[in-house]
């Protein structure tokens, strides 16, 4: 067991998979410059810099994936995925089906997402739902170092195109990671904290926000269960329903805007399959329908904060459940 950051976990996963499988290669804008260790170990054929042209990077990955390589591409910031949408969505996502199953696309697209770095809207956009909505793709968005490592390794071994989102603010966050190989399967959620009164469902760095809120709620005598989805597609419906049935109260928290976001899907699944278990309407706590601001203060307001999670839980529980400060916040 060692303490490493999320960025180190990503590097370890890449190195271990490249060591294990000579077909794995990595390219992107500055990949060979920024990942000197990988370049030194695997050489310039397998760790490549590219032009600043996301379309050709993603298209090259798709073509290579279909014909025997297992590329990992780093497209830097999620908004730049707009330049690569055609290659990811129309080629990698669809050509398996269109061709009647003649080709597979074992490739991983890494991109940074999320607030916390005050980089503003053209570098910060949580657009995971776009890809969840696209057939043929898988989408992963972990919250801690161990999952980053284990899920990236699984994504590289998966025979489908996987979007791997790195919440920017998590990069330097340390966490416990097993030294031996710990694969985390795609499509399985984690119970980040057990609880019995209310279920809080989240992913990426918002999981930490929810855990902080759960601490505060515990002080109030409310036992919150926090579910970390980790993988948004495939989505672990069973884990979602199990917890919703257990507590009967569900809050969904994500930073991406509400309309047609992942929370809408999670909410619909629960209403379709566990409506009878609900003691209160499901609540979604999300970022606003606005581009991400750069100003630190506005950016903090853009992200759901622990206090807001507590308030939302209080609404689910009924205001009498809370004492003191939190109660005032709810009544305000």
């Amino acid at each position, binding site marked *: 067991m060692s303490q490493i950051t999320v960025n180190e976990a990503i590097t370890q996963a890449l190195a271990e998979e490249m060591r294990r499988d000579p077909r794995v290669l990595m390219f992107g804008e500055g990949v060979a410059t920024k990942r000197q260790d990988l370049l030194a170990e695997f050489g310039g054929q397998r760790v490549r810099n*590219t*032009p600043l042209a996301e379309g050709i990077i*993603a*298209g090259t990955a798709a*073509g290579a994936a279909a014909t*025997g390589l297992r590329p990992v591409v780093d497209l830097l910031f999620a908004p730049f995925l707009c330049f690569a949408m055609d290659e990811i969505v129309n080629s990698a996502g669809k050509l398996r089906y269109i*061709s*009647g199953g003649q080709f597979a696309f074992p490739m991983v697209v890494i991109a940074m997402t999320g607030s916390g770095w005050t980089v503003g809207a053209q570098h910060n956009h949580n657009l995971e739902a776009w890809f969840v909505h696209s057939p043929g793709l*898988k989408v992963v968005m972990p919250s801690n170092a161990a999952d980053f490592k284990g899920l990236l390794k699984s994504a590289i071994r998966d025979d489908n195109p996987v979007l791997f989102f790195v919440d920017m603010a998590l990069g330097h966050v340390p966490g416990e990671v097993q030294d031996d190989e710990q694969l985390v399967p795609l499509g399985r959620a984690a119970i980040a904290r057990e609880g019995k009164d209310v279920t809080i469902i989240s992913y990426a760095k918002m999981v930490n926000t929810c855990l902080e809120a759960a601490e505060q709620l515990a002080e109030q005598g409310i036992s919150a269960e926090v579910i970390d989805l980790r993988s948004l597609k495939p989505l672990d419906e069973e884990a979602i329903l199990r917890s919703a049935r257990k507590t009967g109260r569900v809050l969904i928290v994500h930073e991406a805007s509400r309309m047609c976001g992942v929370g809408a899907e999670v909410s619909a699944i629960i209403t379709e399959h566990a409506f009878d278990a609900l003691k209160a309407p499901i609540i979604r706590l999300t970022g606003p329908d606005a581009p991400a601001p750069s100003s630190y203060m506005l950016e903090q307001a853009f992200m759901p904060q622990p206090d807001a999670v507590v308030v939302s839980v209080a609404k689910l529980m009924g205001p009498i459940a809370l004492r003191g400060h939190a109660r005032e916040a709810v009544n305000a």
Partner: protein
Amino acid sequence: MSQIIQDSRAVSMLECMMLIRAYEEKITALQAAAGGAGTCTSVGQEASAVGVVRALSTDDRILTNHRSAGHLLARGADPGRLFAEVMGRSTGYCKGKSGSLHISAKELGVLLTSTIVGGELSLATGVALSMSMLKQPGIVACFFGDGAACEGIFHESLNLASVWKLPILYVCENNQWQAYVHRKETMIGDHVSAWAKNYGMESRTVDGNDVEAVHAATREAIARIHETGKPYLLETYTYRLRGHFEPDDQAYVAADELAQWRERDPIAQMQQKLIARGEISPSDIAQMEARVAKTIAQAAEFALNSPFPAASELTTDVYA
């Protein structure tokens, strides 16, 4: 099962061009009679398809676009399975999931057909990267139109292929049209081949209606790719004699332009040339016509008698 044909004899190339023409005419006739989804035909461009594809070896891979029937047939595709694909039958090359616009046939080395204009240009670099890193012999031939050449991805693709020294033969079929827009409205100059210079790439424009000229130019281009280890751009200058997407009355096409290019029909030209050279007689041509007609009639029959895919196929092949 179909076989990949790599027969460079002039007579054989002529018959293949006639087969493509008969295929396209049959599919448009079937559609006109029964309705249903149209196709983008390659009538008028047969010399470009046959001249290039017949110069490729079995190791070489092909990426193409929405106007692909000629490329597939020149590669030896079974016309019955092509008809079946267009008609949405389960016996088609892609089990009826492609339709006419993005047929691929891995067994023939015809990969990843894209109907997103320019999509094949982005995938080609990856296929060539695989071939070079996995040390496979052969090159990638990537077919696209002058319309695709006006897109950013064309420039991204040529640039990266040049920088990474990928074995790609870019084949721009400049058929003067970009759907319903004449090339002259949207591009500077007459030729795409000149643009390759900026990427340190050798290139050439060839008369796309002369199958022997296309064939010779392709062989030279492939030899250069093997010699230099670098990509090459070949522009076949030709004309789309039918509309963009069937049915299409071509009301937007200038009559004199169309008439001029009809005069230069690649099949009629080749027939005259071979008769003049004494390589075939008019009765040979009649025999070829009968053979081709029979093949196409049987192929259409096969497709029409083929079953549609079961509804349960709707969600298969989405994920590996």
